[in-house]
């Protein structure tokens, strides 16, 4: 479900069925590596929207967590933990964070959520058809990750 009033209404009614939050991690910078920063954000945006479309009924796509490229990894992690806590308190059993920024790999162990790092694929020179195919191939992997997470929680 998306972070919109109409979807949240459904969420409020069907809370027991929605146990997974998806948080895209999106870097901001205008001074250094402008283009790569933007492409990370764009790519993760596309992936998280597509993921939401496929698994709408059990996911809540929350607004992206944004941070400055210049912010230290410790401080980002500290801030992000608060969001994780809020989501867990709100009843989310699984939190999935999507990022293209390799820096987050360092703090993976400090996070309670499943961090999914995927390098941004430059989409700008692809034609439409190719783009759709590339994204849906990527999405398959992400879906696998998410459904595995769900299944392992049933067993565990």
């Amino acid at each position: 479900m998306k972070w919109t009033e109409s979807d949240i209404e459904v969420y409020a009614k069907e809370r027991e069925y929605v146990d997974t939050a998806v948080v895209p991690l999106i870097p901001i910078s205008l001074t250094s590596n402008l283009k790569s920063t933007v492409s990370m954000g764009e790519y993760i945006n596309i992936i998280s929207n597509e993921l939401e479309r496929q698994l709408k009924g059990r996911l809540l796509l929350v607004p992206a967590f944004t941070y400055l490229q210049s912010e230290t990894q410790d401080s980002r992690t500290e801030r992000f933990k608060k969001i994780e806590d809020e989501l867990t308190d709100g009843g989310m059993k699984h939190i999935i964070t999507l990022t293209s920024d390799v820096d987050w790999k360092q703090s993976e162990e400090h996070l309670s959520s499943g961090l999914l790092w995927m390098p941004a694929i430059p989409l700008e020179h692809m034609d439409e058809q190719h783009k759709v195919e590339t994204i849906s191939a990527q999405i398959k992997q992400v879906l696998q990750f998410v459904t595995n997470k769900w299944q392992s929680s049933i067993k565990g």
Partner: protein
Amino acid sequence: MAKKKEVTRRQFLNYSLTGVGGFMAAGMLMPMVRFAIDPLLKEKSKQDFVPVMETSEITNQPVRKEFKIDQVDGWYESEVTQSAWVYKDEKDEIVALSPVCKHLGCTVDWASNPAYPDQFFCPCHAGRYTKDGVNVPGTPPLAPLDVYNKKVENGKLYLGKPEPR
């Protein structure tokens, strides 16, 4: 006494005032009336059909086809990806089902659960549908999958909007 055909000053003023007033009233009322009956005059928005695939490619095994439609959402125009499960049924008729689960809107997958190889399966809450899109009782969905409006032209399958059954 004035001659029969002659218009008096008073009459002339009366006529011209009603005339001008009438125009002014009409000028105000016309747009209002137009607004009021506008929904009736509006052409029914044309059903947009989108070419999806060649009919010769369709087999009796459901395949998922993605296509894009333009969606206007308030002021926000966007291209939305939609999918359909397309196959031929026993009577050799083309069926195009919407993959949106009637429970909470996940995307269902054909035969993705090894335990149910001939059913649509929803990964979110294990909802199931038989091949014709009818929900399996006892699983979360309460209605069958939507069916796309479709037409075939020049060997191509065109899909319109999904309609609930």
